[in-house]
């Protein structure tokens, strides 16, 4: 399974749960793989997807704790055993197992690192990216 497939599968999963989902959202000079925004509840979810290297996903996921209510790492079934769940739990980061569907292995805990300013910035960027996608100016798979 390639990272792009992971991203598409998880995005579809969030879309089906009423989230407005964008990919490759720029934030603090990184691109967050998937950000889902649910406008009615005002909930933000961020997901970092990696095929094998969970530590790399973890380092990126930590940044997401600054704005997202819940942060997850997504990995395919065959490599999920490599993840150190206790390290994720230390920061309240959840884990998603991805094959043809998405299974929540461990649920994320509400982030205690959120900054309201960063949260507002990210919500604005979700809306900006959605607009670019609608206009066909944005290609996250590039």
């Amino acid at each position, binding site marked *: 399974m390639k990272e792009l497939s992971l991203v598409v599968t998880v995005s579809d999963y969030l879309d089906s749960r009423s989230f407005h989902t964008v990919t490759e959202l*720029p934030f603090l000079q990184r691109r967050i793989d998937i950000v889902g925004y649910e406008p009615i509840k005002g909930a933000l979810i961020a997901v970092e997807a990696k095929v094998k290297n969970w530590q790399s996903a973890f380092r990126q996921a*930590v*940044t997401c*704790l*600054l704005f997202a209510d819940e942060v997850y790492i997504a990995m395919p079934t065959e490599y999920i055993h490599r993840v150190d769940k206790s390290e994720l739990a230390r920061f309240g980061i959840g884990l998603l197992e991805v094959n043809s569907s998405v299974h929540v292995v461990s649920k994320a805990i509400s982030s205690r*690192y959120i*900054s309201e300013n960063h949260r507002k910035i990210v919500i604005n960027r979700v809306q900006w990216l959605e607009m670019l996608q609608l206009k066909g100016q944005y290609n996250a798979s590039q």
Partner: protein
Amino acid sequence: MPVNKPLHLMRLGVHAEQQYFELNKDKFDIVVFNANLVHHFASATATLMTSKLNGKKFIIDPITHAYGHHPQYIMTVSKDGGPAKIKSSLESLAHVYGPPISTAVSHVRQISPNDFSSTKPIEQFAKSVIDFQANFLASAIDPSDRKYILADVDAVLKPEFLIAPYFYMKSTTINDWLMINRNLVVASKKVAGDNNLYAEIVIDRGILDNVDELTKIANAYRELAECDGYLLWISDLSEHKSSLSTLCGLRNLVSILAQSEKPVINLYGGYYSLLLAGSGLTGVCHGPGYGEDRDVIPVGGGLPVSKYYLNPVHQRLLFRDVQFMVAGDVWRNIDDFFKEVCSGPVCQRVLSGDLKNNFEKFGSENVRENKGRTYSYPTTEARFLTTQHYLEAKAGEFNNVAEKDLKVLIEQLKEARGRYDKEMPGAQLRYLDTWVEALR
């Protein structure tokens, strides 16, 4: 015992950085220019040193090593799709330096030891490089403008010391270049007059791991009566990533050169270099917010990234990592932050009142979309704040090294390792252990 305060040198990489030199004029001792910048922006450089930085000491690194690498490393691709060309600033400087450099550049080839197989090219080259440093800036002032300059132009535009031409050495080329580099120092001294002359030693970092090679080079320079001091440039030596053996090698190199009782300055160094003051290092150079290490081969810059210098660990960390620590209450309140991290003017001004919200100012960013991709990059204000904070932190480090015993400074490193290691997910603070071990 505390040591003399090390000389604080700052390298001006591009003229856009002038504001930092002006604002921090009292925090450093010597401005370092690269010769190609001086030549390319002669009037602007001369004006800077006779106005905003009037009275400040400076030196000009002749960067002669640039002509010893394969030409592809000093070429740029033409914007109109034409063939790659030697960078104009280096090409024009080559013509000032004359043969054999200008000849090599004209033929788009690198300079080789064979170009210095007799005494004449060595003497010619040394003379042109020394003449350039000694006289070029003063000659860049239009004679009709001299009356408008209050300062004594010739005195103000005289470098603090001159630097002999030099070429880069790695394990496989020591035998080719060491004698030539020595001869260039000897020839330079003959034309340097009353000016102090420094030898610049530019080597591959791998040499620091090889005791025989390191000792051979260090002894060759230590015994050079013709030079009045040493400048070190260990290519691509990151103090934060180097092994114990490499850092011990740097200390060893400094110690051997210091036996000459002449100044030894690291041109690209950080806090570990400063701690080598006790081993004989007398000065350290860096740029405004960067430049604690540098490869002799130019490498691409990439998009700018916000970094905040976390003073207790002596490293520029990604803003997002420090913001994460702030958000995670690593410091209980603003007073703890001022006490533990930084209470300099910039941090006082930016952070006072609300640490969590105000710290974000160091990382504010803009976004843009280009050809279907989106980017975020630091705002001008964020870059200014992080750079100013860095320079204030650096000034504090130079003072600390002079005021505190090395044992106390080593204890501080151990404390920082214990205090912050667990607080930084994915952080690598092992270098602090390596520094402590290398300084034993």
